[in-house]
């Protein structure tokens, strides 16, 4: 943890007064190591250290705590700030069904998040949720959705022989007619650098005009998290992020990097394989996790 890292430095500091420049540099070095270990993007770490340095040299050192405790306090506040807002939840459409689309890299947790999101909306807002299976590539992708949807009493639309854009529009029309309040479209995993696949998702968006688009991002993602989040946003601007696999012991620095650069809020977190392992995002909890 950062406080653990600082403990050694704590004992070395003699004066309780202002933090000497060398002491501050030692502290900044510890922060740099802690954040890089936590997968925070190195460019974001650089900027973060600048912010902390400015604040730590500018602020009046409080009488009640040691200078190093002051730095920890600044670091914690800065991280919470850089993680973005607490989740605002779902904003539903004012007329007609709310159409939600999810996208992301292969294996990030889209299909399971679609099911969890459907269950969350269903149980929290008592709205009729339906799912469109637009992944025509992955073997048994549709079966995976259907099996999971059965457990929560949600309908799934799929039509073999069609491309994902046609399935999406047909599915939305089908569920619009049968009175669904919310329609969620599950898409195939794709790389943000795959031109054809990114065109596909742009075409789906153009065709069905979703109210909400979420990027599903694995919490274990390393330094590339920023480029991934940025790449998807450039082609298909999204509203928020669903961060998955937070039950792992990964520190989740990707959360910090992504909000800082792309400014898209993390709206939901997935914390396991059970359907109820799905929560709204709270920056304070994420901050303490990143700091270790």
């Amino acid at each position, binding site marked *: 943890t950062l406080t653990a890292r600082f403990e050694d430095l704590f004992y070395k500091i003699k004066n309780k007064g202002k933090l000497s420049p060398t002491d501050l540099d030692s502290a900044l070095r510890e922060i740099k*190591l802690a954040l890089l270990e936590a997968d925070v993007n*190195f460019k974001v770490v650089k900027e973060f250290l600048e912010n902390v340095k400015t604040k730590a040299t500018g602020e009046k050192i409080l009488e009640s705590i040691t200078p190093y405790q002051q730095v920890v306090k600044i670091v914690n506040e800065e991280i919470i700030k850089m993680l973005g807002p607490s989740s605002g939840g779902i904003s539903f459409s004012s007329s007609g069904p709310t159409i939600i689309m999810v996208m992301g890299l292969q294996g990030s947790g889209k299909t399971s998040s679609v099911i969890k999101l459907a269950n969350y909306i269903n149980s929290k807002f008592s709205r009729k949720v339906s799912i469109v299976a637009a992944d025509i*590539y992955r073997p048994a992708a549709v*079966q995976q959705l259907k099996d999971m949807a059965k457990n929560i009493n949600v309908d799934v639309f799929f039509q073999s022989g069609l491309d994902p854009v046609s399935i999406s529009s047909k599915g939305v029309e089908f569920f619009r007619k049968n009175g669904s309040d919310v329609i969620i479209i599950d898409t195939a995993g794709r790389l943000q*650098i795959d031109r054809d696949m990114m065109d596909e998702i742009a075409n789906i968006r153009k065709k069905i005009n979703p109210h909400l688009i979420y990027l599903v991002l*694995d919490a274990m993602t390393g*330094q590339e998290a920023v480029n991934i989040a940025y790449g998807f946003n450039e082609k298909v601007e999204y509203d928020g992020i669903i961060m998955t696999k937070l039950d*792992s012991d*990964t520190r989740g620095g990707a959360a910090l990097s992504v909000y800082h650069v792309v400014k898209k809020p993390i709206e939901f977190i997935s914390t396991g394989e059970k359907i109820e392992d799905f929560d709204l995002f709270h920056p304070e909890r994420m901050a303490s996790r990143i700091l270790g």
Partner: protein
Amino acid sequence: WNKFKNDNRLFWDELEEQMIAGDISIDTTAMILDEVKKNAYSENINDPERIETLIKSEIIKILEINKNTELNIPHEPPAVFLIVGVNGTGKTSSVAKLASMFKKDGKKVLLSAADTYRAAAVEQLQHYAEKLNLDIVYHQKFSDPGAVVYDSIEKAKAKGIDIVLIDTAGRMQTSHNLMEELKKIKKVISGRINRDADEILLVIDSTTGQNAKKQVELFNKSLNLTGIILTKTDSTSKGGIVITIKNDLKVPVKLITSGEKLDDMSYFDAVKFTDLLFS
């Protein structure tokens, strides 16, 4: 020496950043750069291209020491490979790619669908069994994966199968019960073939950051891994964490996958990997 270091600070900082950006851990990066700086100083090397070449050769040295990228196929069939890893890394698709690779080599392969938990996991593997015309053993949903493995090996012996590939459910290395389940599967295997599984391969997603090292630590502690399959190398992530893993934990990458087609699997090439890291 300090003058040399300081004069070129910006240059060395950029190299450090490039390595960190590739998900190499900060400790491994520092260790490699310290070694290269010593050599560069003692041999008076100042040219950036030559320095990059020095860094690459340090990395290749780490990756190739005690080189063991060969897959262990014993004299007595069936060979048994256990494929493990955290959720969504590419285990099932890697099993399919391995099967395709061995089939092309004229080997008789049997697929063991030991992920009895996740929705449509068996169906996903069945698709490949049908496509490649291979035997597959599977049980009812939520049945004991150890029993699937037991039946798979017994069937393989009866049918003169060369290689049994076992697909398992994704799991976090921090889940005690699920790691115990894998240990139990490992025991079932050695019970059936009177030796340890011939390969126990951890599947790691290239986009994973520093947590990959923790994955190897704990999976290795429970199972004694024989190697790593590094997937999704076609992504923009460099997978540099495998350098840290090889250096600190001695577990080698044996195979990589670079796409979603059945033939997108190849043996790990340290030189190619290192060149891509700096491209």
